[in-house]
């Protein structure tokens, strides 16, 4: 008996739509691609980085972008002595809340440091850009101590 013909159909798993990050998050990510960081002014005038679409207290739609610095200050940090596989670094590092120069609200990212003793609340840090920037939050590879 001959082998029955096997029916074949190519199948590509994919999304049938594209997703826009919108005018606020999209602007921030596009600026990252250009190695620039922008924040947005909240209802009370505080500069929020990364920018939010709406003010969490007043629900006002926000639109006034502000360039902020690529250096800032550590507001709080957590020392990861055993990085997890998913973490952005494979050697001990810190997660930190970083208030960039010109911003009023800290952002969370990772900080490269040789040891826990080298890092402290109040320490100055600066952005380390990824080799290739593509408009993701990971365009900021990490921060490093100044």
């Amino acid at each position, binding site marked *: 008996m001959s082998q029955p013909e096997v029916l074949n159909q190519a199948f590509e798993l994919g999304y049938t739509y594209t997703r826009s990050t919108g005018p606020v998050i999209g602007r921030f990510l596009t600026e990252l691609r250009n190695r620039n960081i922008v924040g947005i002014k909240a209802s009370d005038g505080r500069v929020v980085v990364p920018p939010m679409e709406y003010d969490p207290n007043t629900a006002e739609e926000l639109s006034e972008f502000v360039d902020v610095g690529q250096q800032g200050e550590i*507001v*709080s940090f*957590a020392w990861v002595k055993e990085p997890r596989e*998913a973490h952005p670094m494979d050697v001990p590092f810190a*997660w930190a809340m970083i208030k960039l120069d010109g911003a009023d609200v800290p952002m969370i990212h990772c900080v490269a440091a040789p040891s826990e003793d080298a890092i402290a609340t109040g320490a100055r840090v600066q952005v380390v850009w990824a080799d290739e920037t593509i408009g993701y939050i990971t365009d900021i590879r990490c921060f490093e101590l100044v």
Partner: protein
Amino acid sequence: MKEIAIVGFQQSNSVSDAGAVNEVEMIMPVLSRIFQQVGINNAQDVGFVCSGSCDYLQGAAFAFVAGVDALGAVPPIKESHVEMDAAWALYESILKIRMGHADSALIYGFGKSSPGELPIVMSQQLDPYYLAPLWVDSISLAALQARLMLDQGLITERDMAEVVSQSRRNAMNNPHAQLAGDVAPDDVLAQEMYLSPLRKADICPVSDGASAMIIATVEKAKEWGLPYAIISGIDHCIETHNLGMRDLTDSVSTRTAAKRAGMGAGPVEVAELYAPFSHQEIILSRALGLGDETLINPSGGVLAGNLMMASGLSRIGEVFNRIVSGEVQRGIAHATSGPCLQHNLVTVLEKA
């Protein structure tokens, strides 16, 4: 408005690894016990069923539907689900009863967290553009919060160790606890840092298990002839997802929820607080203004065992147990969700 009462509560043991036992097999013994406690046959005998669970724990879309297999939903039942802790399933059930669509409800929550890497799974509940792609885990975020408090002199490491010690000691009286023992604060402080400024003991364990509750109108509770506790208030409140815009050293949303739930209308003899990290118990008790007159986490709290999606419901069940046993007349239970106590629910329970 119809008064609503809790008539039954059951919980599984908190275990670090349930092994081959699947979610349905974790839920079924708890349901079997609660049907026996209330004296009903099955889910057909209540007017509404609502569960709380998280598909991310199982890593499959609509995984919660399988939980219904534990109910035997034939003939059809009125059923709902929240992708939240089952404390919020209780909230939905209360609304259902208040709307007059049911006079009793079964609520259950379950979570088998052991197969995955829970702190990393939790990173995917964060802002999808700014935080989730960094895979910043739940323990690291809590560590950032703890350091803010330590730096500002709001707490000391010893304060945190005392919370752990009290939890371990209280848990010695909790047969369902995963971590219990006569642990002194100095024993905790002697531990090395795990994710500085947190020690492993400051962090709730990863646990598998389930819990279930049955509520009813007071008329129905009387008809069943069961001891019950009144839910005199329940409310919840959420803060922004932007951690940088929150005061992480306080819990404004817990305070608001407690006020709206009517906590201040009487003494708080017992409080069960959902604090997955030692410093968070201090944040919560301060936000609620709890003092020496309140017994906090007599069960040991979730530092003694943290059933994701069920422990919030269990906090309420623990207070219910203490009221129907006659130990206390009035107490509050708190449930939380999201990073660093983002979303909080407060329930006020009173003796009938």
